[in-house]
């Protein structure tokens, strides 16, 4: 169920250039049903900035009632969010949307998880859940440069992890596709989250494979009421437009026209 929760910040840490990891505690955590769901955060009690910010859930600890989000502090809203300290309260609406289907990869099978920049966070909880059920995960994580890299160690603990940077300052130089070409097609499922051009390249390269992609779109309500966040579907689909916030953000490969 979607709830509006005043969650307590239990920690706030800068983990890479402009990238913050925030842990939040509250009953909303109990409502999360799948990795890749997101929350809609009001960064301050003021009406300026006005809109909530959609941020993916990066990790869940049900026992502690705690979730982790990882975000880039770039614009006005996320900069304000990055100034919250442990003990502060934050107004969080969620969990929202449909996440990555863990059940689509069976125990013993292999999955490849490809993330770009701030698309990396939701893959962490996904990988935790997949590996917990006995899926072998390979991670391909792309960043701009070595300053922007985060969670390399955390992902490495869960499975094979390839870091790619555009400028080559860490790991492989180039794009995630550079590594993907080397890894080949020997996996059951792919899961991805990142910028549109990356998703497009991945869908092309893995044409015919089972895959799930998480999309971004500017949002108003975050719950499906305002029609702000639609994306167009491919011709085959029965619906012309689908909503990223409530129908997505994760869709099977081939559904969204990119």
């Amino acid at each position, binding site marked *: 169920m979607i709830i509006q929760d005043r969650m307590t910040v239990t920690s706030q840490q800068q983990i890479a250039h402009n990238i913050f990891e925030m842990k939040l505690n509250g009953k909303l955590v109990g409502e999360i049903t799948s990795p890749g769901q997101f929350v809609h955060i009001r960064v301050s009690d003021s009406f*300026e900035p*006005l*809109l909530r910010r959609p941020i993916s859930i990066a990790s869940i600890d049900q026992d502690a009632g705690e979730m982790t989000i990882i975000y880039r502090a770039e614009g006005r809203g996320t900069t304000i969010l990055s100034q919250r300290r442990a003990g502060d309260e934050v107004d969080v609406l969620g969990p929202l949307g449909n996440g990555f289907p863990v059940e689509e990869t069976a125990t013993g099978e292999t999955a490849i998880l490809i993330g770009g920049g701030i698309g990396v966070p939701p893959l962490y909880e996904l990988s935790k859940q997949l590996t917990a059920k006995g899926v072998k995960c390979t991670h391909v994580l792309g960043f701009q440069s070595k300053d922007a890299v985060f969670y390399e160690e955390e992902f490495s603990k869960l499975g094979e992890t390839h870091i790619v940077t555009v400028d080559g300052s860490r790991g492989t130089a180039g794009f995630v596709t550079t590594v993907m070409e080397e890894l080949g097609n020997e996996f059951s499922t792919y899961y991805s989250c990142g910028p549109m051009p990356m998703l497009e390249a991945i869908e092309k390269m893995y044409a015919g494979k089972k895959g799930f992609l998480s999309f971004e*779109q500017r949002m*108003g*309500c975050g719950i499906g*009421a305002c*029609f702000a966040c639609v994306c167009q579907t491919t011709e085959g689909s029965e619906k012309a437009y689908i909503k990223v916030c*409530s129908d997505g953000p994760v869709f099977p490969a081939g559904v969204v026209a990119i």
Partner: protein
Amino acid sequence: MNRLSIELPGLSLKNPIMPASGCFGFGKEYGQLYDLSLLGAIMIKSTTLEMRLGNPTPRVAETASGMLNAIGLQNPGLKGVLEGELPWLEQFDVPIIANVAGTETADYVEVAKMISQAPNVKALELNISCPNVKCGGITFGTDPEIAKELTRAVKEVSSVPVYVKLSPNVTTIVEIAQAVEAGGADGITMINTLIGMRLDQKTGRPVIANGTGGLSGPAVKPVAIRMVYEVSKAVNIPIIGMGGVTEVADIIDFMSAGASAVAVGTANFVNPFVCPQIIEQLPAKLDELGINHISELIGRSHRL
């Protein structure tokens, strides 16, 4: 006695608070969050004769204390609304105000005629003011003669009272208000959004795919209050006011300016519980102001 009840043409409101059209879909999403019977009424998303896909994305952009939208009237069309949306809302004890949009008079008339017959539709809201549709729409709202004729045509076929939604993007809003009153409107709803634009810093191009969008939220409240004030002095039909409402104090302001009821738009996105919260806070606010029944607030600003 219910201190919050308001009687308007076609509408027996248990309280004067309702979500604004386009900011609440057809109720289903907010219906997951709270009991929709708490609301005074619901203004549903604009309905057109045929289904509309709306504009390309991005459709929204944030601005200082406001937002721009150019959804472009995406909706499932008259048939879709009659069959797929309105019946679900019948389970709630809440009057529906159906927002009607079109590109020419014939569209409006057809939608108005059919949708006004739905059992839970107690009033129509004629959207002559949407800034985000390229042809029609906006012209109806800026020319007094055309607005009057459209109102008259819709009144002829509607089974329920007709409210006309005014555009703030005009030199003299009083002129349009008086024209729709002359055309037989039972009430006025105002304001729709102000036309605005935001550019991307890096490219210099508009953020919103449509170019311009409609400005809403707290930023526009002073303009909305001024216009409600002016129009309420100039017409004898009731006004449902809106534009930037976020909290209970704003309800007091709109009613003081001359509105008989108030709609809440953008604020639903920021605080999905804003409508029931305001309704709950109203009685204490009336006590604070020493006011017995909420109707005493209406047009307070005009009195000495």
